[in-house]
């Protein structure tokens, strides 16, 4: 239900995406892995038109847009089917935690205030932050802010949630609490596309891994296959360097 066809993206003379094809089915959890500069984040941001691809077709459900001819209202319609969780959380600073979550419900989905509040509180419970409903983002730790960001994305009940390196800005101790939340919602059957450097997490939670390098998809397969029997030299190099040499027993 999400299809990317022949996505090309250049920034000036630099070709970042060189023809990406990707198919994601409902309920899939796709992790996009790869070295920095491989185009992972750019690809993710092309899906919801935060970056405008130069060429290709993006289809979500029954809405198919050619990136060259897409009209503004079509882009907004497409964005309404998605939600994004950002590396730097991007919470609305002037709104409380609860208001951050109800914002989309009230403004985009035009839900009545009471219903929006109920949905928001339910989700805050799910991410373990109902006691912070009236706090402002500046009063929260990074892990808490990201969990609010996840709740904000979930509230809209989108077709797909896009995660852009959700834990990369967190200190190691807070990474766990956010990954726990993502694990939890992964079980609920919602479609997710995650760009991450958390290899073990990706391996554990994904239904499929997509390995990118130099603007193309090098390999795409189930986690066991990618992590145990990678085909490409580059994939092997990348995974090997990231396997921790030392393991601690706690």
């Amino acid at each position: 239900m999400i299809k990317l066809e022949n996505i090309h993206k250049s920034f000036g003379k630099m070709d970042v995406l060189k023809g990406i094809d990707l198919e994601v089915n409902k309920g899939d959890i796709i992790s996009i892995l790869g070295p920095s500069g491989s185009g992972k984040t750019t690809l993710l941001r092309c899906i919801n038109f935060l970056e405008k691809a130069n060429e290709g077709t993006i289809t979500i459900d029954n809405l198919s847009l050619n990136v060259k001819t897409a009209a503004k209202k079509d882009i907004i319609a497409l964005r309404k089917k998605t939600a994004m969780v950002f590396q730097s959380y991007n919470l609305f600073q002037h709104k409380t935690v609860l208001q951050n979550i109800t914002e989309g419900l009230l403004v985009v989905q035009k839900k009545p205030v009471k219903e929006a509040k109920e949905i928001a509180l339910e989700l805050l419970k799910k991410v373990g932050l109902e006691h912070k409903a009236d706090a402002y983002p500046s009063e929260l730790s990074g892990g808490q802010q990201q969990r609010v960001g996840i709740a904000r994305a979930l509230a809209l009940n989108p077709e797909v949630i896009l995660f852009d390196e959700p834990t990369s800005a967190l200190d190691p101790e807070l990474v766990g609490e956010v990954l726990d939340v993502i694990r939890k919602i992964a079980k609920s059957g919602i479609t997710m596309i995650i760009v991450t450097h958390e290899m073990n997490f990706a391996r554990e939670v994904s239904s499929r891994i997509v390995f990118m390098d130099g603007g193309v998809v090098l390999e795409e397969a189930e986690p066991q296959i990618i992590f145990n029997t990678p085909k490409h030299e580059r994939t092997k190099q990348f995974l090997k360097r990231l396997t921790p040499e030392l393991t601690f027993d706690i």
Partner: protein
Amino acid sequence: MQLDFNFIMYALKELSKVIPFTLFLAFTPIILGFVIGLIVAFIRMSDLKIIKACANFYVSFYRGTPVIMHIFIIYFGFTNLAQEVLNVSLNGIPLYVFVLIALTLNAGAFLSEIIRSGILSVSKGQIEAAQSIGMTMSQTFRRIIFPQAIVAAIPNLTNICTAFLHATSIAFLISVTEITGTANIIAASNLKFLEAFIAAAVIYWVISILIEVLSAKIEKKVTKHIRSGVVQNT
């Protein structure tokens, strides 16, 4: 040198009568200029090449020339133009109207930059977050950008209020009787220039202090969300 303190008190009393008028002269341009500034800020952030060039010129001229020039050019320019081109005399129009026009155009230029800087101070990430959930640019601006832009602009806006309060004093050059103009009149008729202008200075100062105090109160109230720190216990 002997200062006539009785006269200073008399001057203070007389000058206080024109405080409302002076405030009107100072703040009407700011309010109207805010609307102009908003429009101009949008134009300058858009891609409309020709209109943008005009807006840039407007801002550059009005920020680049002293307020006195604006008041003189607007006053003498309009009156002469009306006489020669339209053969209409503008003598019936009260002088302060020309001051208002000049100050409004001046305010628009300065406020467009203040508003633009406030808008730019809102992090791009928040704008992307709003867009990623399907908010239109108009919704994003109204609900996310503008509220935060205004809060960021408060110190600058306070500056403008104080600056315009003082700028009204130039109006006396075209015989408008605001604070300075009135001070000049009572000074001339009593030959006590120093006392009259000391009184005027005191009044300007007190009003400026009140503006500062009000601004501080407002700023404290609207920045509640960013003055709290990170709590230690989760």
